């Protein structure tokens, strides 16, 4: 017997119009399915946020020294005091100093009887936001007291503050370095891939030569060659250029191999037959195709450059005090005494781990999404 037709199952996805979607929209839809990648994006957003608003988020300024709290542990934030009372406003316990009679070292003692409430948008040490706007508002702080979430170093500087400032420097070095590497790699790789033949041969041999040099000694040599008198900024730029000069090779190879493959595709032949010049084919037809792969490569190159800067500065040959980067902060934690007595100095290392992991997660997601047309 004929059956009445059942109602068409309506897919929830029906209201999207995939046939109108650009490649970026398709990539985003595919990316969204990758949960770890979304976690990575959130982590990165937090890091970038703290890098941009470092001055406001931190309770102190990086140069500020607290003589009353030298080389001391992170101060905990509490809501419930020793008498089991709940306070809506978080607080830290007061600290008093005493001298150890035997070693004559200054010690900080927790005074549970006194509470220092944490205030928000307090007036603290003055600073210039991004070197432009003078203000002294900090997101949180303690009036007539101090709060050190990550502890202090042997000079009494707040590790939390310095870490946030360092985030800005490290991420921006990474960004500038990657941009240089990107441009250099795309151009050189593009030339090799599009023209092929002898040109490609020469460029590939050059790339292989550069890649065969051990990176660490290369960086050390290049940065040791920097004059000691250079200002922080000059050193900063020089370091990023050095890192980019070594980092472009990977991207160039990706661009080249993609281009070699795309060159043979029918749609490229059709573009030639349509009368397009080589330049038009590269810019109009091929570039959008391998743009997504280049972005994947950037998410891999970024942590490499980040780690490279960290390593250099950690070894004392990159950025130096008084500039802050994660590497510079870790430089101070280089000896056994520091690690055993002041383990909180290693917290910037955690930030590095988080940043590299975040980039890797995002990179994984992007790699899956990079070719939204694969079947």
């Amino acid at each position: 017997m004929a059956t009445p037709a059942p109602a068409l199952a309506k897919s929830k996805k029906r209201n999207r119009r995939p046939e109108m979607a650009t490649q970026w929209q398709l990539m985003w839809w595919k990316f969204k399915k990758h949960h770890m990648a979304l976690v990575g994006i959130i982590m990165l957003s937090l890091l970038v946020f703290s890098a941009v608003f470092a001055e406001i988020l931190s309770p102190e300024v990086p140069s500020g020294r607290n003589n009353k709290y030298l080389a001391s542990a992170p101060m905990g934030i509490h809501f419930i005091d020793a008498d089991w009372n709940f306070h809506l406003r978080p607080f830290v316990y007061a600290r008093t100093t005493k001298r150890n009679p035997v070693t004559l070292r200054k010690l900080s003692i927790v005074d549970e009887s006194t509470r220092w409430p944490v205030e928000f948008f307090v007036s603290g040490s003055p600073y210039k936001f991004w070197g432009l706007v003078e203000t002294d508002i900090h997101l949180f702080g303690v009036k007539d007291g101090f709060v050190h979430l990550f502890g202090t170093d042997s000079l009494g500087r707040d590790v939390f503050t310095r870490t946030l400032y360092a985030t800005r420097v490290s991420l921006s070095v990474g960004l500038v370095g990657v941009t240089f590497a990107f441009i250099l790699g795309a151009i050189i790789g593009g030339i090799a891939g599009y023209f092929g033949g002898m040109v490609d041969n020469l460029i590939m041999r050059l790339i292989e030569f550069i890649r065969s040099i051990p990176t660490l000694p290369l960086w050390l040599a290049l940065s040791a060659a920097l004059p000691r008198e250079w200002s922080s900024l000059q050193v900063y730029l020089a370091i990023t250029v050095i890192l980019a000069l070594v980092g472009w090779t990977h991207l160039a190879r990706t661009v080249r191999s993609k281009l070699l493959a795309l060159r043979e595709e029918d749609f490229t032949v059709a573009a030639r037959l349509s009368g397009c010049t080589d330049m038009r084919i590269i810019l109009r037809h091929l570039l959008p195709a391998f743009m997504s792969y280049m972005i994947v490569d950037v998410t891999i190159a970024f942590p490499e450059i980040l780690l490279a800067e960290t390593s250099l500065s950690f070894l004392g040959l990159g950025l130096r005090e008084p500039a802050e980067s994660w590497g510079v902060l870790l430089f101070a934690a280089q000896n056994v005494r520091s690690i055993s007595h002041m383990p909180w100095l290693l917290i910037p290392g955690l930030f590095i781990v988080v940043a590299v992991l975040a980039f890797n997660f995002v990179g994984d997601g992007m790699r899956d999404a990079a070719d939204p047309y694969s079947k």
Partner: protein
Amino acid sequence: MKSGVLLEVRDLHITLDFDGDDIPVVQGIDFELPAGKVLALVGESGCGKSITAQALLRLLSRELRISCGAINFRPDEDQAPVDIVSLGKDGKEIRAIRGNQMSMIFQEPMSSFSPIHRIGDQIGEVIELHLKLSKAETRTRVIELLGKVGIPDPERAVDQYPHSFSGGMRQRAMIAKSLACDPAVLIADEPTTALDVTIQAQILEIMRNLKDEFGMSMIFITHDLGVVAQIADEVAIMYMGKIVEKGPVMEIFKSPQHPYTIALLSAIPRLGKLSNRRKLTSIQGSVPSLFERPAGCAFHPRCDSFIATRCDTHIPAKSLTSAQHEVHCFLHEAVEAEPAA
């Protein structure tokens, strides 16, 4: 299950899991394969013929599953039939059937053999797994099989690697492998589509011999109606996951009943009519995507004989236009309503 029937498919439904939604891919198909006959499953891309073939051996990929129906397999007349749908997806029972009682050959001869193992070893693997013969006996049997499919110099060929074989030779080797354990049923999924026409003729000849001399039963999947005419005994035409017409090959070609079948037959260029170049009849529109299945009869938006308020609201049931010839179309519904004479 009728006697003499090796394979019976009843009301088979296969669904696709797409992002949490269940999309029907095959919607209730029935067919039978009698011993010694060739049944052709014919259709264009997206009709579900390859998926049906994969379902017979439970080879469906993860997003697809059999949601309803039975596949009754009785290779041995004396034994009870086994419902393949009820078996575990990769369990011992189905693995004992695959390659042994029911085997399959695929479309791409270039990629169906592992490039790093010898041909003899790859064919012998099936024999060792199922027939448990000794190494020497296996080798003898492989050489015999290679000879049976017309590979020259089988004693040398057995030790060669696939890359030294041409496309036609590899396809023959694949047929040899599928015959290794004397299966009751051979499923051929577009076996000649990727081959040159002269090689295709040779492979079709081998398959015809298998049918005529050895009584091999086959399910032959293809989109090429010319090949169907040359090899099939019975033909089932599929469209969007349903069988729209089924019957003996002569009747299907001489008196097609379903508008889709009629249109397909007039869409292919025929050699016999070279001198008068009539225009090919094309079917308007194109196959809808799985997500936009038309209501009622899936073919109605493209059908020249579309009946409004009938074809677009109801699904046609099976009607018989002759003893063996069934069609699913409202144009023929009247036939069923007549009482048996």
